[in-house]
């Protein structure tokens, strides 16, 4: 079995531009593949639901451009997954277009590109549901029903390594994948080289965020991983960073609900018995991952749907007596809204974000001060009707201004209106699907389109 070297320049490609110096240093270490993930659920449901990218187009071009030029120079495959933040078809096509533009501009020799699509029409999910297929809720969510699907504007399925393996086996030099498990991007070439699924997906889990597995904390720097038998050897490419047993083990638990398991379609990686040791000054060896195959293959679905238009207003409070009674002031404001529009519900939602007290942590805040020195209340309104959202935001903020608090000394206004204007926010979306669905084949929800890019 061949040792494989993978260079990962960044996690969530183009969220901010990658750091070229450590990447170029990594390119001189003889990598066999250059791989990066480009998407995340962390950006909320709107990019998926509205089918927008949140990474700046210039940064996408920067990151894809440098990866493409170097991987073509070295004549090694490049793999990018969860294209353009969400992995929708729009995202895949946008990345393919950038690759094509850079190839033309740099007059690169012809190469083969595979685009793997992962968007699932809601209609397809509806059909499966009507055939009796269970769409099972994750993390305590109920199973999906017709209502879930009706409220879903867009959905993607999350691929494991199989569609990417097939594209590489077919000779792709560049793979642009839709939504994919981050670790699957790295596992695909390793599985093709004959490595086991345990070490293959484990290597991906450790490498997916690039320099986050090294210390000290530095984002967007490159990491080189060498996979030999059942072990992953990780080396930081920035001269001031080190992959230490502690930093790599610490990263293995990052952003996962359960520290011991990494789920992908078709099974999970069991990391309970992983061992992290120092291989040399620069490099840490990680080993001991076991892949546990699931009895049936379930593919994760992510879906988002629009709730309404969003308007915001910003209000400040400095009067200590008003601060102490902010809940009463908010109740007054809510009361005026209810009188005019009825209680919040289907027609509108309203949130009073009270910064200075519990604006950041809300229900998890145990230390809300009784009387903050000053307060900032951000009023967030969502309504299908944008004029209604606008009116509610204005009425809510002005009724903090006019709040009737017994004994109020400052009778010219109970709150400071920062600008007495209503700000237009992006539309509000909701995660409608965080589910898994049983499939016959791990690849059945995905389709691949191959093309040659560049002129002879």
């Amino acid at each position, binding site marked *: 079995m061949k040792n494989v070297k993978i260079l990962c320049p960044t996690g969530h490609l183009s969220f901010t531009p990658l750091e070229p110096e450590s990447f170029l240093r990594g390119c001189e270490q003889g990598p066999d593949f250059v791989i990066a993930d480009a998407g995340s*659920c*962390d*950006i*909320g*449901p*709107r990019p998926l639901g509205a089918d927008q990218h949140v990474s700046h187009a210039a940064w996408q071009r920067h990151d894809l451009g440098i990866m493409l030029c170097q991987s073509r120079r070295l004549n090694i495959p490049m793999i990018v997954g969860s294209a353009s933040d969400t992995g929708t078809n729009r995202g895949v096509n946008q990345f393919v277009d950038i690759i094509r533009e850079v190839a033309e501009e740099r007059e690169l020799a012809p190469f083969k590109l595979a685009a793997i699509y992962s968007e699932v029409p809601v209609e397809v999910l509806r059909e499966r549901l009507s055939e009796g297929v269970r769409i099972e809720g*994750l*993390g*305590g*969510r109920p199973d999906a029903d017709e209502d879930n699907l009706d409220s879903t504007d867009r959905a993607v399925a999350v691929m494991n390594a199989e569609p990417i393996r097939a594209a590489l086996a077919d000779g792709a030099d560049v793979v642009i994948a839709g939504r994919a498990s981050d670790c699957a991007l790295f596992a695909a070439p390793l599985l093709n080289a004959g490595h086991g699924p345990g070490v293959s997906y484990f290597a991906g889990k450790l490498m997916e965020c690039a320099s986050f597995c090294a210390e000290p904390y530095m984002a967007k720097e490159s990491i080189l991983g060498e996979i030999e038998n059942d072990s992953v050897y990780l080396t930081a490419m920035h001269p001031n960073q080190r992959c230490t*047993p*502690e930093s790599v*083990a*610490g990263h*293995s*638990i*990052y*952003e*996962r*609900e*359960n*520290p*011991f398991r990494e789920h992908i379609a078709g099974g999970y990686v069991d990391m309970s018995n*992983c*061992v*992290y040791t120092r291989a040399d000054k620069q490099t840490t060896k990680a080993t001991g991952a076991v892949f546990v195959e699931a009895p049936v293959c379930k593919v994760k679905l*992510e879906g988002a749907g629009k*709730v*309404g238009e*969003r308007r915001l207003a910003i209000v400040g409070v400095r009067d200590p007596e008003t601060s102490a009674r902010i809940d009463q002031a908010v109740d007054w404001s809510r009361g005026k809204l209810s009188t005019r529009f009825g209680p919040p519900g289907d027609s509108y*939602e309203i*949130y009073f*974000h009270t910064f200075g007290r519990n*604006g*950041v*942590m*809300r*229900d*998890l*805040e*145990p*230390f809300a001060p009784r009387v903050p020195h000053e307060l900032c209340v951000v009023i*967030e309104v*969502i309504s299908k009707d944008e004029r209604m959202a606008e009116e509610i935001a204005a009425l809510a903020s002005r009724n903090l201004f006019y709040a009737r608090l017994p004994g109020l000394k400052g009778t010219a206004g109970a709150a400071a209106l920062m600008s007495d204007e209503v700000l237009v926010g992006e539309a*509000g*979306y*909701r*995660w409608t699907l*965080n589910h898994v669905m049983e499939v016959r084949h791990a690849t059945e929800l995905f389709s691949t389109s191959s093309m040659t890019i560049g002129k002879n």
Partner: protein
Amino acid sequence: MSDELRNLAKTIRSKNAGVDHITFDIILNDRKTFERVRDRAGLDAASVAKLFGIDKDRISHFAAFEPANAIKFTIRRLRPSGDPGESDMFGCQQYAPLFAVKIP
């Protein structure tokens, strides 16, 4: 002598774990400190639920993870990340209450 957790840990962080959970990692300075915190601090699902003032059944996972000298637990969100009403989209500013936990 008791110390505050913030003085014994090199990392105390919170972050989304998928769209429905926030996970917390406390990475201690070394193995000895990890064992001290694991064995003597009385940290468990019930005590962190109490610290954050939430029901214990919102703690979906609590574990000590020896390879990283880490204590890790996960809280189920009341609303998914980024839904209307969100205050911390990445869930990355929820760890502050852990700082002052007294460790005997």
